[in-house]
Each structure stands twice: as C-alpha cells, then as structure tokens.
C-alpha cells in the first residue's frame, strides 16, 4: 500500500539552492550546506510514497511540487521538562515579599 493517497495531508521537501548557488558572503558552515524548505498541503497525486516527486495543494490553494517528506506530519514541540533552575523561584520571592 502506498504511504499516501490523494487528499492526504502531506509535507514536501525542496532544495531551494545547492551550496554552490548560495551567495558567497555566508559563514562557511552555512555556505557548505544546501538551502532547504518544507511546505504542507494536500496530496494531488492518486498514490505516492515518501521520497517520490509529488504535487500538493497548499492551504491557500496553490499547487506546488517537491519530494514527499512526511504524511500527516505532527506538531511535536512541547512544554519541555521541568527545570530545577526555575521551579523554586516563586517560593523564594514570595518569602522575600513576606519579610519586607
């Protein structure tokens, strides 16, 4: 079975500029890697697998093409882990206010 079918939420990947197409005035660590982008939309192709060249309709209805990168991508940024450097601050300043 294909990874995605027509209408699925899909993310495409594009190389916008290869390193030799990037301007010269960049730090070397930036200049040595390609300039890349990822865009989401709905798959136009009937069926496709990750890595295939595909077309999508973006959220505003534009048609773009690129390499299928992910199907139904999730937002996985989060609230982070509890930070021992932060958790006691509230009580410390409360105590100071009570003293004054």
């Amino acid at each position, binding site marked *: 079975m294909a990874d995605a079918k027509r209408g699925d939420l899909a993310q495409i990947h594009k190389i*916008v*500029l290869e390193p030799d*197409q*990037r*301007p010269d005035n*960049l*730090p070397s*660590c*930036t200049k040595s*890697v*390609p*300039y*890349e*982008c*990822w*865009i*989401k*939309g709905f798959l136009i192709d009937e069926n496709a697998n990750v890595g295939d060249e595909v077309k999508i309709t*973006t*959220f*505003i*209805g*534009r048609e773009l093409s690129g390499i299928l990168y992910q199907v139904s991508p999730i*937002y*996985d*940024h*989060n*609230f*982070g*882990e*509890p*930070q021992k*450097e*932060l958790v006691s*601050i*509230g009580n*410390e*300043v*409360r105590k*100071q*206010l009570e*003293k*004054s």
Partner: protein
Amino acid sequence: MDNSYHAVMSRKKEILKRATGIDYDKFEISPITFDYEGLMNSCEYSLEDVQRILQETGVGNTPLVELKNLTELVRSISLPGRGGRIFIKDEAANPSGSFKDRRAALSIFHAKKLGYKGVVAASSGNYGAAVASQAAKRGLKAIILQEVYDSRKVGQPEILEKTRACEAYGAEVWQLTVGPELFYIMLRVLEETEFFSASLYVPTSVGGIDTLGYELGEQVFQKEGRFPDMAIITHAGGGNVTGTARGLKKAGSHNTIVVGVSVDLQGLHMASDIDFNRKSFTTGHTGFGIPFLTWPDRTDVPRNCARGLRYLDRYLSVTQGEVFYTTELLAKLEGIERGPAGNTSLAAAISLARELDRDQILVVQETEYTAAGKLPSSQLTFAKENGIEVRRGDPKENIPGKVIVIPERVDQIEVEDIDMEKIRHSYIERAMKMTESYVPTQEDIQFLAEDSKTSFDYVRETLESLNIKTANSASRLVRGREA
C-alpha cells in the same frame, strides 16, 4: 525566467515596487537623505483611521495593568524612597496574542484596499501569526516564510510553535533552513503570486504601532493624571520603538524617556548554521537590535520606516537567564503567564525601577502569548539538548551560546547600557560606506542628525573625524573630485 539567486536579487526593485504599491524613488532626496515623514504619510491614514481599522478586527485597546507585587519586590531591594511603579501593557490580549497584530492589521487592510489577493511576510515570530490571523479575518491569502531549521533539521521550539500558529490561521508556511536567502525566497514568491509584501518595514506596518504608544500615553494619563516617566520597549528591528515613540508624542507625552532593551546574544552570528540553535531567544535580541540601529535600511524594502535610532534615548541589554527568571516572577507574583518578548523589557524594568523614585511610572509596553515551545521550560530543555550549560548564579557570568545563568536573587538583575555613542558613530560611518564616492551636503548632515537623534554639529564633527569632506551648498558632488 531566470530564478538564480543573483538574477532574482537584480529584479528586487521592480518586484518590490509592485508588491508594496510604493514608488520609493519618489522619496529619495540624495543617496543619503530621504523624505521619512513623506514616506510614513504616503498611505494617508490618520491616527483616527488607524484606530478604527484596528478596532474592526478586534486589535488594540489592550489593558494596562499595574504590577503591584513586583513593584513591592523591587522596593524591598531599593534604597529608601526608591522603586518606581511598574505597569505592563497586556498586548497578549490581541487576536493572535501579540502587539504584532497592530502592524499586520493596517497592512492587510491596505493590501485589500489596493486590490491584492494575498500577502507575503517573512517572519519566524509573532508577526507571521499576526499576518495570517488578519488575512483570515479580511479574506486574503497569506504566505509566511520562516527560518526554522538548522541543516540537521533541528528547529527552534519557539519557531515551531509559530509554524503551528500560522497554519492554524490557514496560511501557507515555508519552513526554511538558516540563511539570509529568506529575502530571495520572498522576492520569488512575490513575483510568482503578485501578492502584497506585508514587510515589517513598510509605512503601514510601522503606522499600526503608533496606536500602541498613543493608548499607553492616554491610559497612564487617565489613571494617574500624568504621562509615564519611562516607556520600556523590547527592541529588534526597530518598529516597536519607532511606533511606540511616535504614538506617545501624538498623545502629548513629550518627556517620556524611550528605552530599548534587547537580550544579549553578542558573539553569535545570525547567519550561522551552528549558532542558530545555540540561541534561546529568536528575536528581541542584540543580533537584530544592534545592526538595525546602525543600518536600518538593511531590510526587505528599499527604505525602512522602522528607525529605532531616531527615537531611542537609551538602549540596554539583559541576559537570557534574567528574562527566564523574570518570566517566573510575572507568573508567580502577578498571576500573568506570558511569552518571552515583553519579559525582556520587564527584566530591564525591574533593574530600572530601582533608580526611580516611588511616584515615578515605568511602562513595559508589551506582553505576548505563551504556549508549547515558548515557555522557559521548553527553551531551557532545548538549550541543554544543544550543549548549553544552565545553572543558578550571578547573571554576570552569562556567556551567549555557552552558559545561561538564572539569577539567585532579584537584586542580581542588572541592565547593561549599550554605548549609544558608539552606535551613532557606526550609523554615520555605515551611511558613508554605503554611498562611497558621494559628498554629503548640509541637507544630508541634517538628515543624519535627525536619523541618529543627534545634532548637526555632532554629525559634522563625526564626519570630520572620519576624514569625510562635505559640500557647503546643497549641490551634489562626487567624493574625491571636489568638495
């Protein structure tokens, strides 16, 4: 069409003229001087018009809140009689959660009036979300271009949250890797779509912020019968400083000291793939703040309407750790949980309030919403994953990109003054570098004086110290040939 980097960049002028609806050439007076007020007024919206347009989409009229517990805390560490009153303008109450709605609201209204079908903005921050939100409300399409990932495809949590927000408002989002080619992509997309460039630096974007300074002046006057002594503004590209200062003047507040604050990220390169994820702040930092003061026209339109140096009285830096600590204070003492942008200027306010008398008023002029990715806990988790040391201690031991020191006590929060003399000097020096062989006239000296908030004599002496000859008349000469 040739879409190579250099070919697209060489079409910049025509692309931007069509995409902004502004013929910037009309405002050019010399290679140095342009008609700033003429450009600002070119869209012909009065302050009343702007207020009405913002109200239509629920933007503005945000609450002004006195932070009484925080003020008490500051007084407990101040000399007797000291400890100014700290107020905050709760800009998170805007539709997309930040003051950036003010910037987007007028630009989107204007774009629609001019008949554009959509808008494009390059922003990894709140502005992208604001443009997407306002475009949704006005029925325009929005494309937001964001610098999100390093070459390992590791993204800044705060920016990943902005991708989510923009997509929640229905925008097409381009998530890009690190590089100044964001501008190149913007030009390509503008050319392809014929959409409006909702740049942060067009007159309508800056004009929208005037309402913030105006409201703030009015609200303090109505509550206290006087204008604020200090307005404290998180500074990056200069729009926030410019609009707030202009609005305060329109409200009649001419003596409020305008203070800009940035998080100290000095030493980190903004276009570096490696440094990108060594930052725990994605804006409101010195990496934007300083270059935008010394060269405001470094931006995505021919002339930048956000000109911080014109309006700043003082420019300060605070450390990342001080801002995280302040974020905790605001939540725990005032019951207000907000994102990092406003807390940068709030950290400075804690330090500055100690210098002021008890009856003096400081206003921190923004807050922003907070969410997954934007909390100190997500930022510090990310910092540790990227090899940054995090510990409690004296914030003076902070090293951008290496060590984040969370203060142990509130009296350790101490702003650092950034040398304005040095910034003004490099602004003038940069203006000379950009116009190489051109000989500045008296009119240019006057412009540079206004643009750097100095005097005619100051600029003349600076030019002398740089061995730059000036023309006596307004005639245009070529540097080196005759002066």
